[in-house]
């Protein structure tokens, strides 16, 4: 913990910053695509130069949902591991291999999309077919992230060997949980890409089993959202308490909540396939029940956050039922941005419970409600927390300081984001309940009466999207300042400490065999029979479709 004010060696900082550069470049490109989408869907604008709507939709989803998130997470987690358990020269070398593999994969996939050879959206559902380079690029991003996974595992292993009998640092433990989840989950999509999509897109296989590919995608797709969310939880549990001048509320609670998230994030993919024919409703129900188990660690997190705020405030002498709340550091963007993220997770989480509620899913399935939902969760909760982290991490890595002026700009950025997203996401939720579809380009659907109720919300989305893009420009400006121009200094790397008299953390919480064993058992329970069913009873596979979207 005494290391928090000591800067990383230059060679480490350069590695972590490389991930941050790709993150913020992705934010600009992906954000611009988002703006174009909302303008196009308003019906008031046409995309210039004959640009295909589904090209920009795919760029938006892939660059923000897969590239920005993965690069930020891997870079941030390397920094956390470097700070808490250290990084050897050999580990750093492999971390660079991870970075370059991911970057080559990203560029390959991005070029394929931009030249119109992969208009398949970020879910790349078969039978839409992209050029093989798209799938190969995505596979490289995943392989690169796996290298990072094993570097992180190795970092903790080496530390444990050097510190026998000691509890691992909380943040290192959390990183390893997240990477274990990512590795187990991404095996699904990697299998699908390697065995199904690449041979099929190259013409070696004539047809593809659509249901199997979608099942393998969502086996990965749901834990993917937790892969995005857990780094935000790391900040909420172990960094925000330090920023507000408090201590860790409970090391054991934090670890238990991460373990539960590991166990219940993966065997739940069917809740994305509730309207899918070909899956036995009993197994859908079982996975819905498992999905609801995730509510437990989520509410544990909410309790822990409130409790951290209250204990810290009361220790500082703030009285009354909510005196502690009034005195939180509202003028510190390192706190404010993640806090708004936490608030957005309340409607985001409540909406998620509706989405997963089996039959009630039909109310919102494939409507733009779902887009509104994940713009609250990933594009507000997660991204504002990432921004909140970047405000101290970037200057810490570049040996600069978050000045009062940049802090103020950060606060303005957070407010712009909040306003833009409130307008955009709320109108998406309402339009979704009115039946407005997601994914599709603007259409008046031959003038149906129901369609008339949608247009005002689509215009509101364009207004919200424009405000958000202004927020992105401001964020890029702040990033460039923090990376290259802010005054030299030492920005704190805030890591919360435990209470001096904290209860010892039970050793069982670090029993990796037990927790990963239960995780694998739950996955086998939830997926074995339905997947055998899918393999045995699937209809004939599908030929590829390159039109109307695809290639």
């Amino acid at each position, binding site marked *: 913990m005494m290391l928090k004010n000591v800067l990383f060696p230059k060679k480490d900082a350069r590695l972590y910053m490389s991930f941050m550069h790709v993150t913020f470049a992705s934010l600009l490109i992906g954000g611009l695509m988002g703006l174009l989408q909302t303008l196009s869907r308003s019906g008031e604008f046409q995309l210039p130069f004959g640009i295909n709507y589904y090209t920009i939709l795919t760029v938006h989803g892939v660059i923000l949902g897969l590239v920005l998130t993965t690069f930020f997470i891997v870079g941030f987690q390397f920094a956390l591991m470097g700070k808490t358990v250290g990084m050897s020269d050999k580990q750093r070398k492999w971390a660079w291999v991870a970075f370059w593999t991911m970057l080559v994969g990203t560029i390959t996939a991005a070029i394929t999309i931009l030249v119109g050879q992969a208009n398949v959206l970020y879910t790349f559902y078969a039978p839409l077919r992209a050029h093989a380079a798209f799938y190969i690029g995505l596979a490289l991003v995943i392989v690169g992230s796996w290298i990072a996974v094993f570097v992180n595992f190795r970092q903790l292993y080496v530390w444990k060997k050097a510190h026998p009998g000691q509890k691992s640092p909380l943040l290192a433990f959390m990183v390893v949980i997240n990477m274990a989840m990512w590795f187990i989950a991404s095996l699904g999509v990697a299998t699908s890409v390697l065995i199904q999509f690449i041979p099929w897109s190259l013409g070696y296989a004539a047809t593809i089993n659509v249901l199997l590919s979608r099942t393998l995608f969502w086996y990965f797709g749901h834990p993917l959202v937790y892969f995005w969310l857990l780094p935000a939880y790391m900040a909420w549990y172990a960094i925000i308490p330090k920023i507000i001048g408090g201590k860790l509320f*409970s090391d054991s609670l934090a670890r238990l909540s991460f373990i539960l998230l590991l166990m219940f994030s993966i065997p739940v993919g069917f809740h994305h396939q509730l309207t899918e024919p070909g899956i036995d409703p009993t197994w859908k129900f079982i996975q819905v029940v498992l999905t609801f188990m995730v509510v437990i660690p989520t*509410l544990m997190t*909410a*309790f822990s956050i*409130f*409790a951290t*705020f*209250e*204990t810290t405030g*009361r*220790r500082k*002498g703030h009285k009354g*039922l*909510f005196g*502690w*709340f009034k005195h939180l550091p509202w003028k510190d963007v390192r706190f404010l941005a993640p806090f708004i993220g936490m608030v957005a997770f*309340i*409607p985001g*989480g*409540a*909406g998620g*419970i*509706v989405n997963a*509620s089996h*039959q*009630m899913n*039909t*109310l919102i399935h494939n409507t733009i409600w779902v887009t509104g939902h994940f713009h609250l969760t990933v594009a507000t909760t997660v991204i504002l927390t990432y921004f909140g982290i970047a405000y101290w991490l970037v200057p810490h890595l570049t040996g600069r300081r978050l000045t009062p002026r940049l802090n103020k700009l950060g606060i303005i950025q957070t407010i712009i984001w909040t306003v833009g997203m409130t307008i955009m996401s709320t109108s998406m939720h309402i339009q979704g*309940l009115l039946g407005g579809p997601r994914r599709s380009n603007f259409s008046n659907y031959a003038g149906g009466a129901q369609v008339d109720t949608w247009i005002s919300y689509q215009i509101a989305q364009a207004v919200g999207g424009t405000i958000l893009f202004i927020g992105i420009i401001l964020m890029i400006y702040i990033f460039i300042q923090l990376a290259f121009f802010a005054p030299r200094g030492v920005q704190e790397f805030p890591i919360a400490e435990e*209470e*001096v*008299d*904290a*209860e010892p953390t039970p050793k069982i919480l670090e029993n990796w065999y037990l927790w990963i064993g239960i995780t694998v058992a739950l996955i086998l329970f939830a997926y074995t029979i339905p997947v055998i069913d899918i393999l045995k009873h699937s209809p004939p596979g599908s030929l590829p479709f390159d039109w109307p979207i695809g290639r």
Partner: protein
Amino acid sequence: MATDNPKKRPVQQSGNPHTGINLKGTFISVMLLGVFILVTWFGLYALFLSR
């Protein structure tokens, strides 16, 4: 229930550091959170039934 002022007693006497902490605000906050979730869910359930 423990009602000690934590300011006067920064170090708890019991083994559990949380016994002396007033968490009434947290209790009310999590209850409000629960109410929000229930209202949202039942509101949409009513919409589901009405369609």
